[in-house]
């Protein structure tokens, strides 16, 4: 089976973001960028399915300007076979991303699409579900285990009360949670090899999708700062403070 893995270039998860002084957005100038951690888990899961003989081809796709080719090369180094960059300078709403991916799904006809459950920048948690709706596919979101069996995939999902397993007809959409796998590090020979793997560039405007914005950001502000409190010397002092100062225990 063919697996499609959409990935996103985001701020590295170790970087603490700063809001721009004009409150227009966060400041991403000269900030380290990486593949979104959940997307990396998606790539790893696809590679494991290929290593297990379940998958035959892995196609990575990213939507953004030329810089996201860096993350596509990362996916290729991790084991994807080829990559597609959908070129746009705009920052698109999740719905428009899903519409572009729908066109890629129509063209590539994957049996499985594996995405990260959310990107750590916009924290929307929408694209996989929207793509599932647009393609009419079932969805296994927040996956901690993915087992392909015949024409179905069983997905174990991390839910509020614990774990839930669902059986989905293929083709299906899976979105990854943190504990699905631990992504490998790309080895140097694989990084070199990735440079020669095919990477197609297509213009977003050529897909015939209305990409006009559905939301606008009015402003972005830093969160209310929490004042660091005091260091107490003993449990007795802590209990006293909680009872008599904060009044949160009796």
């Amino acid at each position: 089976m063919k697996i499609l893995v959409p990935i996103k270039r985001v701020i590295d998860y170790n970087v603490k973001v700063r809001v721009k002084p004009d409150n227009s957005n966060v400041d991403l100038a000269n900030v380290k960028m990486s593949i979104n951690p959940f997307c990396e888990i998606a790539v790893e899961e696809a590679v494991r399915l290929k290593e297990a003989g379940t998958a035959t081809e892995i196609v990575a796709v990213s939507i953004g300007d030329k810089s996201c080719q860096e993350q596509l090369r990362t996916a290729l180094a991790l084991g994807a076979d080829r990559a597609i960059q959908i070129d746009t300078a705009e920052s698109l709403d999740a719905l428009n991303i899903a519409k572009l991916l729908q066109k890629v799904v129509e063209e590539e006809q994957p049996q499985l699409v594996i995405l990260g459950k959310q990107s750590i920048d916009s924290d929307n948690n929408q694209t996989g579900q929207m793509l599932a709706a647009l393609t009419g596919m079932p969805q296994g979101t927040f996956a901690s285990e993915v087992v392909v069996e015949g024409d179905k995939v069983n997905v174990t999902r991390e839910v509020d009360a614990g774990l839930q397993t669902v059986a989905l007809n293929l083709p299906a959409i899976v979105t990854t949670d943190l504990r699905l796998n631990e992504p490998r590090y790309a080895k140097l020979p694989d990084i070199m090899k990735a440079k020669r793997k095919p990477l197609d560039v297509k213009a977003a405007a050529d897909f015939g999708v209305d990409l006009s914005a559905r939301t606008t950001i009015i402003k972005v502000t830093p969160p209310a700062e929490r004042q660091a409190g005091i260091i107490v010397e003993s449990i007795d002092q802590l209990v006293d403070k909680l009872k008599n100062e904060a009044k949160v225990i009796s």
Partner: protein
Amino acid sequence: MSILVFAEHDNSSLKADTLKTVAAAQAIGGDIHILVAGSNCADVASEAAKVNGVSKVFVADNPAYEHQLAENVSLLVTELAGDYEHILATALTTGKNFMPRVAALLDVAQVSDIIAVESADTFVRPIYAGNAIATVQSLDSKKVITVRSTGFDAVATDGSAEVVALGSATDAGISAHVSDEISKSERPDLGAASVVISGGRGMQNGDNFKLLEGIADKLGAAIGASRAAVDAGFVPNDMQVGQTGKIVAPDLYIAVGISGAIQHLAGMKDSKVIVAINKDPEAPIFQVADYGLVADLFDALPELESKL
């Protein structure tokens, strides 16, 4: 202007988070209806009918909705959507799962995880794990919204709404429920508890979480964990507090052996009072804690339990 609120429930009782999502609906303003989709969920419907500010409760009681599979629930909500300008669900795993599907079927954007309402089309939501707060305007005619319940105060429950049963059910027939592994606990729900005590990697193993239990019992607290503790296999995933786990805002949050990665802070920094117990005085958790105690947790926890 009408608003549809999707009820969070387990087929037997209404989750308290729904009362906060109704509060968000009230902040938007309009005639508020609740949808209860489930199976044998009559009790949930009668609870929902008591929620203040709600005029009507629709009940879709059918086996197709028992496990609230996104494929089926999204079709139900989309069918009802015509009459509403706003559709709200709580940003818990059910709402997060099916709501974007509704938005895409309606061809509108979704605004996720709102913590405040500025106006009928403008909402406030955290981005970058809460390290920035965005004010976002939706340009679509219908607004599909998930609500972070910690941003709103629960409405009261002395109302009396009309309950209307919905007849037909839609089974998309492309997905099926296989099994659940539900963690059973006598303690309050993490999301609803007024006190939460969480352990991190410093707990060293799952057995040591017992040290938190005595304190939790005395305080009526829920027990949580950091991602590090869950990843290390100390405790199950449903205990995780953080950017991708549960978002909590109790009156008192006690962080034990948790260093305070930004992903963890994203899940608890709106708590009213934060206590940190950590043996590393440089741990970032102390920068958000109201009361910090630099101590070995294996000494501090038994002493704390004995003095409460």
